[in-house]
């Protein structure tokens, strides 16, 4: 089908965009890359009265090096993450994960801010930003706030974003040298949304692991028990593999039943740990 009609607004500055959102946020929608929103409009699953196109807000397209962190603007596209040498150096996890997002044509338009705001439970970038202990910057005409990834995701397609807020950036703390970052997922075909995925980030070998899972809950989650086990005893890998499947409670899905997804999580954990000991 075709999209329903709407009023199209194209702000040139963030201040202008925030003012528009303050007025029309309740019955309006932001469009960034449009790679999730346009299918929703075509299906008539969304029918905003106003479409606010933030695509021309140049400051949101930057990747900035800060003191101890890297800040990725909300409009940085998937293909730009993949092309960034800085990201490759600091967060190889993101380079690995982006390869699994959709197909080149979608990666050329989709943005990191759009992916996080969409909050698809199987999205790669949400789980990666959670594993990397990121914070998102949410701005409105009234002010701004930083929200940690664990507090940002609130359920399937649900986030902490208020109707008048724009997610403008995600800030990821730099990791120490000699750390580990590994991403793995299982999908039916290249580019499909994952049935399950796992992001491992750790400094000092396996000493302080953060394990984030995607596709197995209503939001990306940390495997806290496996993390605790491995930080006490980094050699307890078999025990961690055995335990991690029980940490997740996937939704009932006839195509991929919960038991199968729990099994996949164990498989992913085994693959990931195998990459550590070549």
């Amino acid at each position: 089908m075709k999209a329903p009609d709407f009023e199209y607004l194209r702000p040139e500055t963030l201040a202008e965009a925030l003012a528009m959102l303050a007025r029309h946020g309740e019955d309006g929608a932001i469009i960034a890359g449009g790679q999730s929103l346009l299918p929703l409009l075509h299906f008539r699953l969304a029918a905003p009265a106003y479409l606010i196109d933030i695509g021309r807000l140049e400051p949101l397209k930057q990747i900035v090096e800060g003191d101890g962190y890297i800040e990725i603007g909300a409009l940085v596209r998937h293909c730009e993450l993949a092309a960034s040498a800085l990201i490759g150096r600091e967060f190889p996890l993101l380079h690995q994960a982006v390869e699994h997002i959709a197909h080149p044509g979608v990666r050329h338009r989709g943005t990191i801010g759009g992916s996080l705001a969409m909050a698809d439970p199987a999205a790669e970038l949400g789980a990666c930003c959670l594993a990397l202990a990121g914070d998102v910057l949410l701005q409105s005409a009234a002010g701004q706030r930083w929200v940690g990834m664990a507090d940002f995701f609130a359920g399937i397609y649900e986030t902490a974003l208020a109707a008048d807020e724009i997610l403008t950036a995600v800030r990821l703390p730099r990791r120490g040298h000699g750390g580990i970052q590994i991403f793995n997922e299982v999908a039916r075909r290249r580019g499909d949304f994952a049935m399950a995925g796992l992001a491992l980030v750790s400094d000092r070998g396996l000493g302080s692991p953060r394990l984030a899972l995607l596709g197995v809950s209503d939001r990306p989650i940390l495997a806290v028990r496996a993390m605790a086990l491995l930080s006490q005893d980094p050699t307890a890998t078999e025990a961690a593999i055995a335990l991690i499947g029980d940490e997740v409670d996937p939704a009932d899905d006839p195509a991929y039943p919960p038991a199968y997804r729990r099994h996949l999580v164990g498989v992913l954990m085994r693959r990931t740990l195998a990459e550590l000991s070549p």
Partner: protein
Amino acid sequence: MKTRRIALTVNGETVEREVPVRQNLVDFLRHDLGFTGSHVGCEQGACGACTVVLDDQTVRGCLVLAVQADGATVETIEGVQLDDLRAAFHRLNALQCGFCTPGMLLSARELLRDNPNPSRQQIRDYLSGNFCRCTGYQAIVDAVETVALERLP
């Protein structure tokens, strides 16, 4: 119906038009400009039949609004040179009905621009967003691989 005036370059020519704001780029190219080489399959980003080139990158023509392409440079299958790829698709039976072919050719062209010597797996990965209901893909991968090898110095 809300409309907006846009100006863009399509296949080398400057175009200015008043478009419905809800119209997607591939419908604009097909209905308003007559470039019917780009096809419309799913309108949800899955099939890749609508692939066009926007500012030097392939995109889903169904997942870009025409108003978003204001000021941009667009190329469709009608506007690009791909003689050897086209010939190889023909020679190696890489098409049957041809519905997917314009999208396949534009994606393959981009792959060979960015990676002149891809493996068969890399070809498959790159074309994973272009569905073909006829060929079973084998011949398409053959054609792209053949052109890559022919082009190597």
